[in-house]
């Protein structure tokens, strides 16, 4: 048994997770007020009732839609701005400090402005997700473009390649690995931005249900909803991470 565990750390990891769940179950069943926490078994059984709560499935679908649109926009804007900043030396020297300065601002402080401009609907959440997600992508694209060996660009140009051909056949393939690691960070940012805005707006969407379950002291449904959202986030992260390992392979 011990030798088996030593050889398979993954199994031991599952054991640790299981132990934590059992500890949670015991604590929640016998020691902690059920107003505040409920055992994982009950949360699991109640998942059906979370989905059966009117408008919860719609709110989850809307959040997923916001995440997808925000991510797509963040990638497009990030690549365009990243190329604009990164492709020229002057642009890099001039605008990179501005990008870094903007990236360093805790954007959560301007969330109320986003709500003011875009309303409490999906637009504000998408916009907030985009501004969180695009900066890591800009930085990754700039880093990727800067790392291209100058000799590749010079030789392509001397062989008579047009600007478009250089972009397509030299810049693009060289940029791909760092673009994907930027997209992974961008996805983390998009998730943070969209979920922050969702939780902030408590009159509709996910934020309405989380604050309602909190005020009703209904930890079972709250844990269920949070669990479903966490699963959504894990799936999206995993998708981008798979993409990264897949597309980063060609260079090795």
């Amino acid at each position: 048994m011990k030798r088996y565990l030593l050889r398979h750390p993954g199994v031991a990891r599952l054991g640790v997770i299981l132990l934590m769940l059992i500890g949670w179950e015991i604590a929640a069943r016998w020691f902690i007020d059920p107003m505040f926490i409920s055992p994982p078994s009950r949360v699991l059984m109640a998942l059906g009732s979370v989905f059966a709560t009117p408008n919860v499935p719609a709110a989850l679908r809307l959040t997923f839609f916001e995440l997808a649109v925000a991510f797509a926009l963040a990638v497009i804007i990030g690549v365009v701005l990243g190329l604009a900043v990164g492709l020229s030396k002057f642009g890099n020297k001039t605008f990179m400090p501005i990008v870094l300065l903007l990236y360093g601002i805790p954007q959560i402080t301007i969330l109320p402005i986003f709500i003011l401009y875009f309303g409490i609907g999906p637009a504000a959440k998408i916009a907030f997700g985009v501004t969180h997600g695009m900066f890591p992508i800009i930085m990754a694209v700039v880093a990727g473009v800067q790392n291209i060996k100058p000799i590749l660009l010079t030789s392509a140009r001397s062989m008579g390649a047009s600007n478009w051909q250089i972009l397509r056949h030299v810049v693009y393939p060289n940029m791909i690995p760092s673009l994907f690691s930027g997209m992974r960070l961008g996805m983390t940012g998009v998730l943070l931005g969209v979920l922050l805005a969702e939780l902030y707006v408590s009159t509709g969407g996910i934020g309405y249900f989380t604050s309602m379950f909190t005020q009703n002291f209904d930890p079972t449904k709250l844990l269920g909803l949070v669990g479903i959202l966490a699963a959504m986030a894990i799936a999206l992260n995993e998708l981008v991470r798979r993409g990264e390992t897949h597309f980063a392979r060609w260079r090795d």
Partner: protein
Amino acid sequence: MTAQSGARRKWLDRYGSRLVQVAFVAAILLLWHLATTRWGVNKILLPSPLSVWQQFVDVIRKGEFLADLQITLMELAVAFVVATVSGTVVGYVISRSPYLIKVFEPLFAGIYSIPIILFLPLYVLFFGLGPASKIALGITMSFFPVVLSTIAGFGNVDRVLVTAAKSMGASDWQLFRHVLVPAALPVVLSGLRMGFTIALLSIIGSETIASLAGLGHRIVNLAENMDMARMFAYIVFVIIIAVFLNTAVSALDARGKRQR
């Protein structure tokens, strides 16, 4: 002719980008000013830069920000200290055994990839609307970068260094103090810097979403009262504080790395 254009080029190289940066900021301020004074953008949507400046001066002069700043900084300090101590201790213990690293590192990395801000409603349920829920969220969010970088730092110390120190008869403490810590410090410090940034973000964020006091709460409160100029002034204030804190932590990080 060529010498002249060469000199000109050098001048452009040196000052050109600075110039464009200043022009960029000036252009934004000018557009902002024109939008509010000439083009009739609603004052509720965008207060004029002058009124924001007046409010900013007023906020600073009256010292009205002190109470909120104190709460936010207190939450930040407690959260960061607890996350630092628990993260480095847990990380160090795990890093001592390659087996434990294999068991726990993917587990922590997996949890770290979940947006932990999702747990905020749970924390509000457990700890209420006061500072406790913010501190708890700050600890949870900044624990993971700290523990992961501690594991990475102490887990990847060059074996040769450890063997050499041991064969020269170093005691456990000497090994820790003179080999492990200097080797791991840069990675650990980067983790602490990230942990600090994340703690700051999660505390202002949770104050914004659900709270009774603090800088984040003040901004939301002003937004709900439609007191836009003052809200912009507070946003500027918080951004200045945040940039100042992050710069200070980065400087400490860089200094710690140099001192090795």
